[in-house]
């Protein structure tokens, strides 16, 4: 039991560090793509670690399983959302690049 509690606290601490890094990246990175790079990965991993840690602390499988499923769901939707944001930004960049080229030619 002691081991599980210790492990749970460690996982949550690690998750919080990752979430802080994600927030820091969102705040300090210069453009959309680098910000997404920081946010999608660190955020997903952070949430997963916090969920796993909380599940271990609860000490019951009935809590751990739904929390794990939540983390999986966050991973899937976070990755897809990040992809969609990057995609729409790329589309816009291509559009503006094309229009400038047309203007200059």
């Amino acid at each position, binding site marked *: 039991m002691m081991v599980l509690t210790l492990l749970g606290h460690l996982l949550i601490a690690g998750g919080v560090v990752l979430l802080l890094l994600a927030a820091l990246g969102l705040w300090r990175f210069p453009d959309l793509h680098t910000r997404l790079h920081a946010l999608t990965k660190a955020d997903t991993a952070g949430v997963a670690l916090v969920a796993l840690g909380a599940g271990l602390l609860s000490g019951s499988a009935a809590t751990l399983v739904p929390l794990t499923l939540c983390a999986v*769901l966050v991973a899937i939707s976070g990755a*897809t959302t990040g*992809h969609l944001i990057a995609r729409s930004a790329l589309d816009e960049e291509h559009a503006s690049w094309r229009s400038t080229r047309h203007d200059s030619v």
Partner: protein
Amino acid sequence: MIVFDLMLAAAILVAGWSALSAPDRTGAIAGFLVFGLLVALSWVRLDAPDVALAEAAIGSGLTGALMLRAAGRMAPPAADRVPRAQRAAAALLACGLAGGLAVAVMDLPGATIVYDPLVRADLGQSGVSNPVTAVLLNFRAWDTLLEMAVLLAALVLVAALGPRGTPRPARLGPLYTPFLRIMAPLSVLVAGHLLWLGATAPGGAFQAGAVLCGGLLALYFGGALRPAAVPAGPLWALCAAGVAVFAAAALAAEVLTGTLLAYPDGADKIWILAIEGGLTVSIGATLLLLFTGLRQGGARA
């Protein structure tokens, strides 16, 4: 935990300020979304998980989506800012409202003192063990019936005043379809789970309907669901089903027991679940159509 609560309260104020002071509409709506999520968290801290679920799903998520949709259709805001006097008047009004609410809350002996024992005393007869569902679908079912009518009226207004036709969503690329294959069935599963859970734990028709609407919206964005291609008649029937089922149940209860919305003894749970099932489908469909709009009339292709 007091430190966390103070930080949460401060964060809510900051989010509210960032929503008000954002230079553009998208930024303001993003601020509003963050604000709603933090408020949902504060409901959790206040031991009101039912309200937290509703706030996160409907208050923040769906309202935010509706706002983004409306912002996309509106002309860009005029360059000159809102007059100072108008801002001052709005601030004064908001402060007055907040002050009035604060006085009302401080002044009352506390609604919990009055209502908690009343609900607790009759909870055993309500057919469900979640006090919130007992109040919404049994003790004060009349209020909920009227709420559904309000939701339907809102849809009628949107259909009457809203834009003609529904916009076709942009293409979202090859990764979106696998995402849909997971999310769409999952939203139905979670909605059913919330609906069933509502009898014993936080959940219920409104939360389930909101989750269902989320799944429907995901399908709509993927191009798999086109409300514009469906004749308006069946859609209206779907949206009116909640009120219809509720009203039919009220009348049936009147016939069976002699009192409006007094369910027959011992069968309360079945009645509540049947009504909530109708409500869930209707809420999901109504919220979706509030977002997409309806095809107008029969003549329009």
